[in-house]
Every structure is written in C-alpha cells, then in structure tokens.
C-alpha cells in the first residue's frame, strides 16, 4: 500500500503529510510512493536512521528557514548546517528520465548534461555537510566525483554547464572566430555544432557507466530530505519514537490528534490527551456524544499508519503492534456512499473486515458506530453479534457505539463525560449495560431550543 493512496483516508493523514516540510518535490514524490512496512526489521531500521537525524535536528534552532539567507549571530553551527542542507536540497530535481536515457546509450543534450552535473555537485555538497555532522554513515551518499571531473573540466565547481572550450582546442578557436564579429556566421557555427555533437557523444559515453550510481545518489539525497523533514516535524509537533510491542498489546500514553490539536491551539484551547491500550480482543468504547470517541478512533488509525511509514507518532509514548491490514470505518467517510444507501455502504465495509479476518492476517479494525443508521433493536443485535463473531480472530477490534450491546466480557471504555459542566475526555473502564445517558444534558449545554429538550425529557422519563 502506497502512502499516496492513503493520504486522503478519513483519519487525517493528509494534515501530517502537508505539514511535512520536504525541500524538493522529488523527495515528496519518493515519500508518497513509499510502501507501507509490514516487518519489524524494516520499521526498526527506518527509526534508527531517523533517530540520528532527530538528535541532530534537536540541537538546531528552527524558526522558518529563510531561503538562502543564513543570518543571526546567535545561531549554532548545527543550525547553520541544517539550513545549508535544506537550501541545497531545494535544488534536488527528479532526473530519472535523463538517467534512463543515458543508460540506454542515448547521447544526452546540454540540459541533461547540466542536470547530471548539478546532481553530482549537489551530492558532493550534501555528502560534505553530512560528514561534518557525522551523519555520513547513516545515509551514505555515493561519491560522484568522477562525474564532476568529466563535466567540470576547468574545476570551477559551479553548477552551470556548456560544452567548455577546454574539451577541444578546435572548438575554442572556432568560438574565438565567432566572437570576433558581432554577426551570425553560419558556416563557423555549423562547424561548432559538429564539434559540440562529437563532444556530447563522448561525454555521454564516459558518463554511461555511472548511471546506476546516479540513481542511488538521487534516492539517497531524497532520503536525507525526508528524514530531516520527519525529524523536524517530530520536534515541532511533539511526536514520539514508538517502540515495537512484543506481547500483542499496543499501549499509548498521551495520544493526540495533531490536526485537532492545532485547531484548538489556534482558538487558544487545550487538547486533552488520552491513554489507551489495544489487545487482540475487542475493545468497546461507549460514552457521551461530543466525547471525542471518533477522534480517538481516527488517532489510532493515524498512529498505525505513521508507524508503518516510519513517522513520529503523536503520543507521549507508544508501544505498538504491527498489522497486516488496517481498517478505519468512520462516519464521515463520504466516499463510501457511492450509489449505496448509508446502511448498505456501511454493511459492505464491515463485511470486508470480516472477509479479511478469515485470511490469516493480523488486522486493526476501527469501527465508528456500526449500524447507526438503522433501528436500535436490530442495530444492537448487529453490533453484539459482530463483537461475538470477531472476538477470537487475529484482530484488534475497536468499536464505538451508543447501543447497549452485549460485550461478552470484553473490555469496555467510556468517555468520562461532563464533569461540572465541562467535558472530560479521559477514557475510563466501564461495564456492560452502563451506556451513559447524557445526550439530553449535552444538548442543553449547546443551547438547543429548551422547549424541545424539556419535551424530550418528559418522553425519556416515560
């Protein structure tokens, strides 16, 4: 599963990706095309690399980097290196087309030669900085010095290119001739073209053996960019490095949803982080409306994706399982209703979870208010049976519901709810049959028409 395909999932992954400050669109492309990791060792490895970058970034003062300017006497050397690195990486371009053309024995043109030269010089620069901050062993940038030698015969080390005079004496003398008169000298120029063509063919021939190493360099540079961006995001949003669980339990302390947190922050309000554990048994979350249950589900889904794509996780600490498949069925998924009624769409989606659970895969299924669109009697029956059906499968199932369902001794949580007129989002353990009845009180705090609420209360007592 590619990151690109998941970015618009309802859990809010897009916010994380949009706030990731990669400096080259190529890095972004590579990141979006990266595949989800399913095995322990590759996730561990990716975090090992990122930790090194995080340690480096942690020393830096990071206001918004201002392109090209390195100012401020107080900035530490680490900060300067970081800014230089970011500035350099802005110049990383996707030249895979050029490289593959080169590899297939084509003669590449001036623009392509320029691109190759830029890449070679950029690699050398970035490699140099990584050495200074001792990260050169973490991401190894291949040495492209040979390419620089070929494309920079005068040793100027500037990223501009033309068929230099020093490639051929004949060319130099012809150009001299061209410069003598400020008119267009067709014959002389045709001769120049002939020699330039020869040199271009020769250069392409010399560069050809390096095409594979160029691709390696390109990807290594993108990797540096992505790791810096991820590490900066961790620092900025206060994310943590997750650990990988060894006992089939995922345990989160202080989990939060970054997008909601930032919205609240803009309104100068505090986000209440919550603690939650997942096991291979169903977990049922009940509780008042507006209690943040859906946000908890979305956060859990997002954390799982972030882990398996090697990002920082929005929590104080997280010890997490790895899953083979992740389902996050929330009520605001607009795409699911394509031509189906909301009930039918929902049933199909849950059916997909059940089918997947038969395929010997480890599954995380997060289901928000299943069967909410039908009558409570049948709804309760559907949800109770869903819990019973799935409770022994290889699955972490989290169900949010308002129905008074049978829980088969599975763990139940509820949102603490209104305490002194204020919502407390903490999740506390509860038991079957203790569905909180706070809808009317909450509606009242929202300032809904009192006549209506009063009438509802009368009905409710009856």
């Amino acid at each position, binding site marked *: 599963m590619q990151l690109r395909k998941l970015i618009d999932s309802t859990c809010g992954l897009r916010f994380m990706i949009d706030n990731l400050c990669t400096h080259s669109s190529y890095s972004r492309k590579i990141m979006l095309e990266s595949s989800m990791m399913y095995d322990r060792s590759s996730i561990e490895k990716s975090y090992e690399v990122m930790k090194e970058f995080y340690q480096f970034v942690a020393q830096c003062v990071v206001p918004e980097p201002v392109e090209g300017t390195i100012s401020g006497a107080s900035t530490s050397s680490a900060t300067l290196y970081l800014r230089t690195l970011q500035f350099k990486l802005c110049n990383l371009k996707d030249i895979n087309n050029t490289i593959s053309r080169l590899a297939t024995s084509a003669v590449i043109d001036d623009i392509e030669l320029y691109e190759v030269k830029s890449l070679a010089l950029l690699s050398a620069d970035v490699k140099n900085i990584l050495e200074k901050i001792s990260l050169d062993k973490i991401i190894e940038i291949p040495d492209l010095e040979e390419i620089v030698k070929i494309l920079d015969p005068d040793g100027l080390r500037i990223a501009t290119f033309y068929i230099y005079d020093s490639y051929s004496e004949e060319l130099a003398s012809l150009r001299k001739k*061209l410069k003598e008169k400020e008119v267009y000298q067709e014959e002389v120029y045709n001769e120049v073209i002939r020699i330039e063509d020869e040199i271009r063919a020769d250069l392409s021939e010399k560069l050809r053996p390096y095409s594979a190493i160029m691709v390696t360099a390109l990807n290594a540079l993108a990797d540096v960019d992505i790791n810096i961006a991820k590490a900066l995001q961790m620092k900025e949003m206060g994310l943590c490095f997750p650990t990988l669980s060894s006992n089939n339990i995922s345990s989160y302390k202080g989990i939060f949803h970054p997008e909601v947190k930032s919205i609240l922050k803009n309104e100068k309000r505090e986000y209440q982080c919550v603690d939650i554990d997942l096991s291979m048994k169903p977990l049922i979350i009940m509780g008042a409306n507006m209690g943040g249950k859906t946000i908890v589900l979305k956060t859990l889904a997002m954390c799982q994706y972030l882990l398996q794509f090697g990002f920082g996780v929005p929590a104080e600490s997280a010890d997490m399982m790895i899953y083979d498949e992740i389902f996050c069925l929330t009520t605001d998924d607009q795409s699911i209703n394509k031509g189906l009624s909301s009930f039918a769409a929902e049933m199909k989606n849950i059916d997909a979870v059940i089918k997947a659970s038969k395929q010997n895969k480890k599954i995380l299924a997060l289901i928000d208010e299943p069967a909410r669109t039908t009558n409570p009697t049948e709804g309760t029956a559907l949800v109770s049976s869903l819990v019973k059906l799935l409770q022994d499968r290889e699955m972490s199932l989290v169900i949010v519901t308002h129905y008074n369902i049978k829980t088969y001794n599975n763990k139940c949580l509820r949102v603490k709810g209104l305490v002194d007129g204020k919502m407390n989002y903490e999740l506390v353990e509860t038991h079957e049959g203790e569905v909180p009845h706070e809808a009317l009180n909450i509606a009242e705090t929202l300032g809904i028409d009192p006549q209506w609420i009063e009438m509802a209360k009368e009905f409710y007592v009856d």
Partner: protein
Amino acid sequence: MNYELKNMPFIEELIKYKSCSIVGLEKNTGKTECFNYVMQRLPLETKRVAVSSIGIDGETTDQVTKTAKPEIFLREGMYFGTSEKHYLMKRLSSELLEISDESTSLGNIVIGKALTPGKILLSGPSSSSGLVRWMDEMKKYDIDLTIIDGALSRMSLASPTVSESMILATGAAYSANINTLVQKTAFVVQMINLDITSQENCDTLNNIKNGVWAIDEEGELHDLKVASSLSININTDGLKKCKTLFVSGALTDNFVNNIRQNRIFNEAELVVRDFTKIFLTPMTYNSFVNGKRKISVLQKSKLIAVCVNPTSPNGIILDSEKLCNLLSEAIKLPVYDLKKNVCNSENSLIQHADCAS
C-alpha cells in the same frame, strides 16, 4: 562597440530604465525587428542585459501568417530566458546557468548566457505574473536592463507592473490607411501617456485588488459593491459628491457610457490601475472626457519610442516618410522607421543577420 548613441536617441533613453517591453499593436508591425535593433545597440560594456519574451518568439516564420520573420540575434554576454525546447535549438554557444521552476508548454524556462553571438528562439513565461517572477529570479545575476519581447498584440505585458518603459511598434499591418493608422496609434499613445493620479490617491488605492471604489470629498473610501465595471447598476445613494472613482479591473465602454449618460460622478476623476486596463474606443473616450472629466492611472510606464513598419504582409507599402511625419506630429514624439534607418546605415547588423538567414 562603436555605435553612436546620438544617432539612436532612444537607446540613450532606454538604458535609463531597468526594464523595457517591446509591444506591437498588431502582428507584423516590426516588433521583432525593433527588438533586434535595440539589441544591437545596447552598450554591453556597461550594462548587463537579459532578454526574454512572453510566449513564443523568434521563430523564423510567423506561426500565424506564415510570413518571414527575423530571428532574435543575441550578442556575447547577454543573459536570456527561453524554454528547454528552444534552448536546445539555439544557434549560439551559451552557458546554461539554471533551469528555473517557471514552466511553459515547451518545458521549464532555462536561463543561459551567450558565449558567442548567435541566434535564438525566445519563449519566455506565458503570463505576466510568470514574467514578473522570472525577472525577480534574474535579480541574482545583477541584471541592469531586461528587455522583453511581446507576442501578438498582448498589451498586458506592457503593464507597468512588468516593465518600467516600453517601445511601441505599429505599421501597415495595423491599418492600411495612413490616416487611420495615425489616429489609432495616436489613441494608444494617448492612453499610455495618461497622467498619474495624485500621490494621495495612489496611496489610498494601490492595494485594492477588485471592485469599483469611490473617494468622497472628505477623502473617505467607499466600496460601491460592484464586482466589475461590466456590471452596470451603480448605487450612487449618498455619493453624489465623490471626488475620485476607481475601477480596479477593466474599464469598458459600457461602464463609461453609463456614467456619462446617467450624469453621475460628474465631477469625479476616473482612475484605473494602468493603461492596459482601458478597453475604450476612441469615440467613447472622447465623448467622456469632453468637458471637465478626466481619466488617470495609478501606474505608468514610460513610452520611449514609437517604431513603424510601413510594409504589411498582404503587400501594402505605405510612404514611410509621410507616415513618420504625420504620426510624430500627432503624438509629439519621435517616430522611427527602423528598417529604413538601418538599411541606410553601413554598420547595419540587422542587414547582416538578414542576409545570413
């Protein structure tokens, strides 16, 4: 280079500005000739020059009328911006400095520096905002003067937001009748030379991006809640005594006639951003200003010269001298027939370039 500036008065004038766009009132009015003429005479020893165009330019035959067109001829040391495709088709040795992020349908804009004299096809950014961004990017090369060649009769490029000064090319292709040609050209020149409004008004109005606004006698600004001057109904309640009327977008015949006929804003000065926003026929303009009304602008670019091409692609050749004299009299500015001037000169480079091609 020993071109005598005194024979080419407008070159001397031109190098006082940081940017200049060359605009043709019609295809085949000799804009590219004019461009080449300027190129050959710029003092490169003292000025660092960059060139680009809006859209495609410098093609050997005209894309629309298939008539012969001169190519753009660059001199050693000039900076230029052109698309990737045309960069590779260049007929000169040049150093590739940078591939910019400005993209066109022919690839990204490549910034190069000519190492030998030679010919090139110019295809710059395809919008004025792209061009402004490109010119901004070029700042790092310490460019003293940017010359921009327009495509078709895209006047928007001559907008003062893009370039400080401009050269206008007109000719038989614009109108085959000398008198009409003079009249039509004179009107454009009149619009270009509209006065800048008071500093006070400039300060108040400069940041307004859309709508129609009025300033009353107390200097207070009122939004007339008109989306553009295309909508006719203007609510003038309580605004009878407005001093200035500002139209941020296009100024159309409809709008102006409406004001005139309804006899509203009689005393007001009508302000537009710059002359490229004026889409009035001479008739509307004249009947509007007739009397005490006035149209002025927030920004103005300096019109350096008017060049004429007495030849049109369908074979009409006007009397060059008569045309120059009549036009010059009408606009009170010197008018040049470059082809004639150049052909009379022995040091002609255009001629060389033409002969070679």
